[in-house]
């Protein structure tokens, strides 16, 4: 396996506090490489969502440096951030669907924001809805969808524009194990097309189901990384890492 050139994300000594509270993230340093599949694990409250917020540019760190796609995004002028956000696909923990838009229009939103012509929207969006099993719910508003259905709309919206990096916060929290696996396969398929995937989950069961994945573990706001290996993660299948530990 060849190591891809360069990196897609680099955190250097990043810390985050909300307001005047204590740091919820401390001394976070890691590098993500293009085309890799990462799991971010940790107990509830460990800071997974906070770390992802930094990743999808919804939050500024209190300290440290963050580079994305080779650019320092901390000092970047506000006006240039949208272009970076468009290269990301995000599955929010609370979905964040636009309540007055149909499932179809929610999924189409990233394409429309990017200025894709209407004639080139209907087909991919319909296909994506079919893929997540919601073809017959295309005109439904989020409020009339079940939690699992909303989650699938959120995932479809995150992947529709073929992002360079997919960031998913507990994306399988509201679906049954069977569908969880199917969605994971969607992420894998996207990953094989070159998308870097970062999935936050406290469901350790998921980890075993993606063979070539790397794991970052958060513990009380710190990456538990005694060996320092995660600072420059080795491209090794998770399964083999597990074997070595045993």
């Amino acid at each position: 396996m060849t190591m891809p050139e360069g990196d897609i994300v680099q955190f250097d000594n990043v810390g985050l506090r909300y307001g005047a509270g204590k740091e919820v993230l401390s001394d976070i340093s890691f590098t993500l490489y293009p085309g890799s599949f990462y799991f971010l694990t940790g107990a509830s409250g460990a800071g997974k969502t906070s770390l992802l917020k930094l990743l999808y540019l919804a939050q500024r760190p209190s300290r440290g440096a963050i580079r994305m796609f080779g650019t320092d995004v901390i000092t970047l002028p506000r006006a240039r951030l949208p272009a970076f956000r468009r290269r990301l696909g995000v599955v929010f923990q609370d979905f964040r669907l636009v309540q007055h838009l149909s499932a179809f229009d929610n999924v189409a939103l990233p394409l429309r924001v990017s200025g894709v012509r209407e004639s080139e929207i209907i087909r991919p969006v319909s296909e994506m809805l079919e893929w997540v099993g919601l073809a017959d719910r295309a005109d439904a508003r989020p409020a009339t969808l079940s939690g699992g259905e909303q989650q699938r709309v959120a995932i479809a919206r995150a992947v529709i524009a073929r992002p360079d990096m997919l960031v998913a916060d507990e994306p399988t929290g509201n679906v049954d194990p069977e569908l969880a696996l199917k969605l994971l396969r969607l992420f894998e398929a996207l990953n094989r097309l070159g998308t870097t995937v970062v999935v936050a989950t406290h469901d350790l069961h998921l980890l075993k189901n993606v063979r070539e994945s790397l794991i970052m573990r958060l513990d009380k706001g710190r990456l538990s990384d005694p060996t320092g290996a995660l600072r420059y993660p080795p491209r090794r299948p998770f399964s083999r890492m597990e074997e070595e530990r045993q």
Partner: protein
Amino acid sequence: MSWLRMERKAQLVPQARLAGPMPWVIAIMVALTTIAAAGGLALNNLAQAARAELSGGLTVQIVEAEPAERERQAELALSLLANVTGVETAQRVADSELRELVEPWLGEDIGTAQDVVPVPALIDVRLSGPVTPEKLRDIRALLKARVPAAQVDAQSSWLAPVFSAISSLKWLAAGLVILLGATSAAAVWLAARSALGTNRATIEIVHLLGGSDGQIARIFQRSVGIDALLGGVAGALLGAGAVLLLGRQFAALGSGMVAGGGLGWADWLAIAGIPFAGVLIAMFTARLTVLAALRKML
């Protein structure tokens, strides 16, 4: 099919049209502003017309009961006035016109009543400059010796209080227009903020999906603009209706002075601009409000 989808794209930010306060706020403000502006413009026209007509004017009355003598003195006064420097024109007001003027008071059979109720001869004098007390005194002195029946009055002197009243009303109307404009802007600003509050989640989502500030502001601006346009047109129709009604009532008075206060096409054009100004203010405040909210997000 695709234009249907396009239609829905315009609804990125929901607006319960005509349900929110925006159209009503705008409609009321535009109606009031229209009425105040029309009033101000009409008063302005009235003052200008009257001033132009009267400021350089003198009236010479020959108050003489004997018709032949009255006629003689009037002719004499005319010829004397023609040689005074500063007098541009001196014209006898035609008897027919005079009869029309006094008809409302004396009745239609003035022609036969002329011998019974003597009507003075009137000479309308126009000066090249304004009527000063010195000019008035000179002309009075000139006429006094040879035209004993002459009474000289500056036209503006007896109208001066009316002028100042009209002028005050005009400024009052201008003040009202400014106050209403400021109030409209404030009301629209509040309405835009409340609309922003209910759409905050949507704005945040579009922002996180990579929507630029301009894109998000445009979506929002358009919704507010459509609401404001609905309200603006309704308000303008209401205001224009009221103005036309008032205008007709004033016209019915048939007074020559009020006739000078009509609205010209330029005035109507200015009044037609009011709802569009309202829409622009609404869209501008909406834009500023959204941009301010977005600037607080990363």
